[in-house]
């Protein structure tokens, strides 16, 4: 069976994939999205377009993903259940499919209180688990949640997220299993700074027999400064940043902190790559796509493999 996307094809062929997060623009000019995305061309296999990340408003993930498709870059469209009810979510999925978007990552989303509109009404009409099932239903059964038939079913490669570092730690692998049952094909994790905790999580995932059922892609952050690392440690919910990492950056001269951040990320990439079941890495350089490229280069992840165009579903629909 042809893969729905290049990313899916690479994973199914056993390649160690590299994805990266695109900093979402705040500009009405598409060039703002293209400029940042072009930095990543050739260094990553697919690019995540975030959905109001951290509950701050940015360009919609659907629009950004479509802009990437126009330029021949492969997007992964993130969509949260925070801002839309089940009607809007399904409409956006179908719209995305019609615009050539194939990879999805579906999630709950950071709460509105974490963002720049804390007074907003949160939606959460369905949860992330149910959203996965809804997307899989559109794809596999050609049905809306209501049971009404689609004229043509979308072809999706469906992703979900998991946070191996947030309590209850022992439930996290079971939750991952639940997401796979709901329809997830691949998993991108929360940022991994603490490798032993992540390794324990992966061992539990392996014990559940899930390694051949899903591609697990840990996120690796590229810290640009000690200040940034401290902010992540203290302010971002669900993120686990060890003291040793912040100390290491704080002991580095400010002019050299970005280089040290790249070095830390490279070490993390190498460490997670040793763990059984890790299918790739998702690199996140916050508003720093150049850092992502430096990490890909220094970690020996370049050049990226090519895939025969015949191996994926071509065109739209």
């Amino acid at each position, binding site marked *: 069976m042809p893969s729905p996307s290049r990313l899916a094809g690479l994973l199914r062929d056993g390649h160690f994939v590299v994805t990266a997060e695109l900093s979402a623009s705040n500009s009405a000019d598409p060039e703002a999205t293209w400029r940042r995305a072009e930095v990543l061309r050739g260094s990553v296999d697919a690019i995540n377009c975030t959905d109001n990340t951290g509950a701050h408003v940015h360009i919609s993930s659907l629009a950004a993903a479509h802009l990437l498709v126009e330029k021949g870059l492969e997007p992964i469209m993130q969509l949260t259940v925070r801002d839309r009810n089940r009607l809007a979510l399904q409409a956006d999925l179908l719209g995305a499919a019609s615009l050539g978007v194939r990879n999805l990552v579906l999630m709950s989303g950071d709460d509105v209180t974490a963002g720049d509109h804390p007074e907003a009404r949160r939606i959460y009409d369905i949860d992330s688990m149910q959203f996965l*099932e809804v997307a899989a239903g559109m794809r596999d059964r050609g049905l809306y949640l209501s049971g009404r038939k689609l004229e043509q079913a979308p072809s999706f490669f469906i992703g979900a997220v998991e946070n191996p570092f*947030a309590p209850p730690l022992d439930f996290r692998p079971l939750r991952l299993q639940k997401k796979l049952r709901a329809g997830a094909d691949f998993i991108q994790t929360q940022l991994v700074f603490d490798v032993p905790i992540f390794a324990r999580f992966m061992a539990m995932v392996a014990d559940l027999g899930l390694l051949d059922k899903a591609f697990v892609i840990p996120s690796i952050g590229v810290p640009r400064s000690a200040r940034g690392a401290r902010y992540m440690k203290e302010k971002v919910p669900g993120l686990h940043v060890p003291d040793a990492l912040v100390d290491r950056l704080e002991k580095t001269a400010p002019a050299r902190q970005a280089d040290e951040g790249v070095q830390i990320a490279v070490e993390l990439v190498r460490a997670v790559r040793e763990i059984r079941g890790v299918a790739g890495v998702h690199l996140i350089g916050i508003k720093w796509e150049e850092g992502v490229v430096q990490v890909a280069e220094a970690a020996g992840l370049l050049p990226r493999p090519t895939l025969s165009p015949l191996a994926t579903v071509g065109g739209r629909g």
Partner: protein
Amino acid sequence: MSVTERLVLAVEKPLKEAIWGCRMCGQCILHSTGLNCPMRCPKNLRNGPCGGVRADGNCEVYPDKRCVWVDAWEGSRRLPLWRDHIEQLQKPVDWQLQGTSSWINLVNRRDRVAPRGWEPDAES
């Protein structure tokens, strides 16, 4: 609302609110959540915790409150009968049932009704 439903609600509502902090969604799944009402989660999550749970086990949204799902997981470990029900995929909430009696909806099986496009064998 029928007289019967009013009478049932007069018992059910105060009782469940007092014991479980029930939010009267009308489609109770307490046995799948270690006897913790999932509708107390600010994200209304019915299938497990979000990724924002704090290291101390408290809620992303209310830092001084314990995450409903941390309690649900620990509670489920203590249940003799429904221990594994926390692993079942729960169907989307039917918001038409908000405020109605889950006891009546249980008896007449109204709480089992899922949207027609929902995968039947994924249901609990």
